[in-house]
């Protein structure tokens, strides 16, 4: 146990919350606020094709017309007039770490991204503020025909038509106000295409760092896993903490073809001034499998409900998620699934921990349409309250439109049992360590779904939060 105590003491609490001072001369920063001019300026910066410029303007119009959500956490503290939609380093995206500007490279070195690339990843994309600064994929993976590139390049290259036919088709800008905002000012993000029957054995990763204060990050991730292919994609995100609001309104669209499998893992540790209004959605064809692994630790306010549309017969979805809401955080997370095809199945398994006045809300929807005969859905959500100044709410919804389906739902809210703490303390473990152990055990179903390095990172985050230094 003494080793564990050392591990807690040894954690560098500034692991994510370090500020690299951005030299103004090296960065281009668009003025705060949102207008037709700012949208056109972003489009110009991106050298958009005409259709994309028009699309952005249509999205701006939608953004101005769509109302704020009438449910969920307050986002009154988010003032778009104080958010810069676009900040980029003046250097271009690089294919080698040594070519990345020194200050940015230092940031990603501290986050361990190059090391992870060397040791355990098939490819890495690193976004700093609004633009990708580094993108690389291993030669042997590229040789399999796997495309992993920044979305802007893909928009103008060989895959331009594929992008056009998929971009914001799964998450239309009419979906909600911040989907429209994303459509208007999106920048950065990745495009992945895995050809038929190609199995990528080790994961690809995109890491998003929002370093600028008072800025928004609007990256777009588009992944197409073709028939019989297999991919694990990892997304990481962090930011230093500022006293002004930052906004993340990214969008992830995932297409899982017939008999393909996609695992999408996220460890989100945005700073606690971040409004995380991200939208993620997957469409799964016959026999396809979509697996989500999601850890939400950061952000001031989150609205995050990855959605899966099980369109194809026999398609499957599994969502495993954990949310840790600490002081000052209001994290509204969960999952959505729509069963359309016959014999589709979904399993949602979430854990939520609330501490130091944090608010953790599990919110979900399970929709079984009349076409989804013999569908099966199972939801299990557990919440753990670590004190009485925090809050844990569970707001699941189910809409079932066929009798030929099997739906089960269970939820529990409670605290760490005194007996369990007493038992551990009787074995010589301090109360604080006992609680940390129990919380780690509670999170175990999630961490065991992650690659080892990321499971360790997640457990570190839990320890940080438990020690009050998260």
């Amino acid at each position, binding site marked *: 146990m003494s080793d564990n105590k050392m591990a807690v003491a040894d954690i560098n609490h500034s692991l994510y919350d370090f500020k690299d001072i951005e030299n103004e001369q090296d960065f281009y920063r668009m003025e705060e606020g949102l207008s037709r001019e700012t949208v056109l300026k972003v489009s110009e910066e991106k050298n958009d094709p005409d259709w994309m410029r028009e699309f952005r303007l249509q999205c701006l119009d939608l953004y101005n017309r769509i109302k704020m959500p009438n449910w969920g956490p307050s986002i009154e503290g988010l003032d778009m007039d104080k958010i810069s939609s676009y900040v980029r380093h003046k250097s271009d995206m690089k294919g080698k770490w040594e070519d990345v500007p020194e200050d940015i490279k230092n940031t990603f070195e501290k986050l361990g991204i190059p090391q992870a690339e060397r040791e355990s990843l098939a490819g890495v994309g690193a976004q700093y503020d609004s633009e990708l600064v580094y993108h690389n994929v291993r030669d042997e993976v590229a040789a399999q025909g796997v495309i992993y590139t920044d979305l802007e390049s893909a928009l103008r290259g060989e895959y331009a038509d594929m992008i056009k036919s998929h971009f914001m088709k799964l998450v239309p800008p009419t979906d909600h106000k911040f989907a429209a905002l994303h459509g208007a000012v999106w920048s950065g993000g990745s495009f992945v295409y895995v050809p038929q029957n190609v199995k990528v054995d080790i994961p690809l990763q995109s890491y998003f760092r929002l370093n600028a204060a008072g800025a928004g990050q609007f990256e777009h991730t588009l992944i197409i896993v073709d028939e019989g292919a297999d991919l694990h994609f990892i997304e990481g995100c962090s930011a230093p903490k500022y006293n002004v609001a930052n906004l993340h309104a990214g969008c992830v669209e995932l297409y899982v073809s017939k008999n393909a499998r996609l695992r999408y893992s996220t460890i989100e540790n945005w700073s606690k001034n971040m409004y995380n209004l991200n939208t993620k959605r997957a469409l799964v064809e016959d026999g396809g499998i979509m697996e989500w692994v999601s850890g939400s630790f950061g952000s001031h306010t989150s609205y995050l409900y990855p959605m899966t549309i099980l369109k194809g017969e026999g398609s499957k979805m599994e969502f495993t998620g954990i949310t840790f809401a600490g002081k000052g955080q209001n994290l509204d997370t969960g999952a959505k699934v729509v069963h359309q095809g016959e014999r589709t199945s979904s399993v949602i398994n979430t854990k939520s921990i609330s501490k130091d006045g944090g608010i953790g809300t599990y919110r979900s*929807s399970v929709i079984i349409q009349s076409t989804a005969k013999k569908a099966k859905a199972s939801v299990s959500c557990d919440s753990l309250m670590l004190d009485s100044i925090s809050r*844990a*709410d*569970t707001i699941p919804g189910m809409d079932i439109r066929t009798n030929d389906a099997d739906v089960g739902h269970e939820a529990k809210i409670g605290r760490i049992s005194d007996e369990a703490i007493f038992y551990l303390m009787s074995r010589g473990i301090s109360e604080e360590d006992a609680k940390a152990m129990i919380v780690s055990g509670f999170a175990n179903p999630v961490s065991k779904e992650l690659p080892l390095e990321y499971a360790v990172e997640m457990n570190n985050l839990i320890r940080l939060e438990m020690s009050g230094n998260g």
Partner: protein
Amino acid sequence: MSSDFELKVNVLPVTTYNFLHVNESTIKISDLSLGKRKSTDEAELPSGVSKKSGVSFGEAGKVFGSFSGRINVLADGYAAPNGDTSERDKEQAVRTGMGADVDRLMRDMNVTSDVYTVDEGVKADKPIAISDKYEDGEMALLSYVIHAKKDSEITVILMESSERSAAGLSGISVRLMAEDGAKITLVKTQMLGDGFVHFYDIGGACLEGAGISLVTLELGGCDVHSSAYINLSEDNSAYSSNLAYLARDDHRLDFNYVADQRGKKTEALMDFKGVLMDRAQKTFRGTLDFKSGSSGSVGDEQEDALLLSPDVVNRTMPVILCQEEDVEGRHGATIGQLTEELLFYMMSRGIDEERARRIMVSARLESVARLIPDPDIMQKTIYYIQNIL
């Protein structure tokens, strides 16, 4: 008096995705014209129980006002942070499941209340059974207040029925005040005709050690709203709800049951089971709300919905809100059809499939009907279930 009304009712305690269409429900009433309904079977009250009729709806609610400091209906800091809807029912004497629009309707239509008061320490020796048999085309709004004084016990049974082919409107408001140690059991069996719009709106408050038990059978009617909001205001108070429902044809059922747990060591147990057939639609909202200070409390909410047709629509919203560490809250839902194994078992015993289904469905509903403490009403209800299936 004649008028049109549109009521916004059954508002979820916290709003959620609009596309689920569960945040609220609407009742439209056209040409509301109330006749003079005289409920029957209430002539002989148990000793120690008194009844005052003709009390204005507002006046009848004053019994809750005299405990306002203890019921503490809407204290600051209790609102759920993400989409709390309590503000809209602030004006209610006691918060009810359907909400303030029902109160407004009752007041606008000058509905008077029957107020039953059970004297301190009195354990009523028999239930009060109130029966309403409606005529075709009849419209009625009824209001009851049941006030159980300290350490008293009372059971009230409501039976609402009509011919199966009848149409009309039946709206009932019941407000329950259980003082320290008092126990109120409220039973309702609803067997209205296929053209009836029916609503049943309950609001209740329990002081220290008090208990409210609800037994509800919603078996008829074409458009039914049935809801309860029970305030477990003080320590060791308890609430239980057993509800069975049957929806057929194009009928619509809409529920909103809330346990608001504020006292220490409170207990809320809610069990809902029902059957949807044909093209019926049902929305069920069930909420356990553990407020700050409710340490040691437990809440359990279970729903078991049996779907017997490919055209039914079942919406379920089992919500837990929790602002207290030392509580145990659980909810579970099972939604689907009869399992093949069960049918096979029964068929292997010589019961044909159709009969096996009927047995399983009626057993589900009868398990709640058997909780009715009046043998005559219980038998009538079971007979109705067996006939309608």
